[in-house]
């Protein structure tokens, strides 16, 4: 069970959530929040996984660069 994060935290500030928090029901806001949270986590995990995979495949100098910037 995921812990719920507010829409404002997920989307980067309350100024981005005004129409959502004003007009969506609490249930819909919760469902939307969980959906966005899942998507962002999936995307971030995929980036991290790809970074790990590419580090293993890159030649020495680049491996160090990628590891220092993205890993």
């Amino acid at each position, binding site marked *: 069970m995921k812990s719920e994060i507010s829409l404002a935290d*997920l*989307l*980067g500030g309350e100024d*981005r959530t005004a*129409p*959502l928090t004003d*007009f*969506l*029901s609490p*249930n*819909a806001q919760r*469902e*939307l929040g969980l*959906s*966005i949270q*899942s*998507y*962002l986590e999936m*995307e*971030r995990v*995929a*980036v991290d996984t*790809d*970074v790990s*995979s*590419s580090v293993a*495949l*890159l030649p020495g100098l*680049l491996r160090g*660069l*990628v590891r220092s*910037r*993205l890993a």
Partner: protein
Amino acid sequence: MTDTYQPDLETRAEIERLKASIELGEELLGELEKLGAGAIRQLRHSISEQVFGYKREGFESLAGLVRFLPRGYLAKLAVSAFGARLCGRLVSCMNPISAAAIAKRLPPEFLADASAHADPRKVREVIRLLPAAVVRDSTLVLVKRRAYGLMARFADALSPSAIRAIVKAVDDDEILLKIAFLMEDKSQISKMIQMIDNDRIARIVRTGTDKALWPAALSVIDGVEGELRSRLANVMGQQDSATLDGLVLVAHEQGLWPPVLRGMAAMSPKHYRKIVNLPSLRKPQLLQGLIQCAYDENLLEATLPLVSYMRADHQKLVAKLVLEQGDEIADATLWAANNSGHWRVILELAQYLEDSERNVLARMSIFRKKAPLKALLESAAESGQMLLLLDYVKRLDGDGLRLMVQIALENSGDIIESMLSAARHHPEGWKVVVTAVAAVEDQEDFSQFREVLARQTDEDQQAFRKSAEGLGFWDRLAPSLDAA
């Protein structure tokens, strides 16, 4: 329109775009649809910022360093080590010229994969710099995958040569329509259509006449303006009755009357008769939806001219339905007729109303205002509808009658003269004219009326007097008319 809420086309497109990223349950979907396209777009962009914001500084730093490596070497590493996702992120942070130089060395499948992970706001310039053949080949990969949303995301960045190459290579018009439906920047659709020859455009719109694709076709027609919209709307208007009947049903079921009405306003009137007399448009429930939509969307002015092309029984149905839908819609329809110079249409409809309905119409507040009443009187005089007008005049109250006579006496009394001529042929003609004149209070108006009456034949003058005596007005009118 059906009872369930039906979002407009842009909201539907936004929902489709959002669904490409996140899951939306039925309840959430229903609530989001009601927020409208703007709010959903804002949500989608916020999500996108979070996605592309992850480790952005790292990608930017890396992009700054790898630009010193040979491009051919980087292209090899892109496929063998980085992979599509990281390349999509990296290219979003690179100098567009370098990024394009590397991208054109990559296989189409890889570019198609990477495009799903590239920030659309950052890579437009890269796409513009790519050779048309490279863009075309990557697009063909996405076509095979039916990735319409992804193609639409980058379509507004295509160069003219890339557009031509893609349109030539993609023979399936359904795909082009679906991409156009999902394109965010509708102004780009106009530019793209201008680069496509007439025959192909006609073919694309004809493809859209399949029931399931009408929304996409309407979205394209509604997304362009001016001559281009007319061109597309005319292709729509050229379809056979069965196809157009399908359009009417889709418009009704899916709440798409606004783009249909805007499209019809842009098409040649030669198609109107066929469309407005379609069998499906004779269903009262459907017509009610259309009228309500024309009112809600401020499209009554564009809709009124269509009524003239309807057959009589159909006009009769429309006239009754407008009144049945309440004073607010009836009043708005009259104002729309006034503002767009279509009083003649109202007179056409008014002839089909029953006695009680005529009373309702004559009670409308618009007939207490000089400018619209004057325009109506002039239209009735021009179109030979004075007999009908007399029938409505008798239903006006004192203020309405006074104003009407005042207007009718302007310009040497041309309109009152037309009314006097009509009075001869209407069973209650003289009675109506006498009642109207009896409502006058201004001595100058009496003076003008006397001049007009004096120009009539002795027979008509006698008929006026006889009617005034019968109504008990003569004793009051005679001194005023004499004194005037």
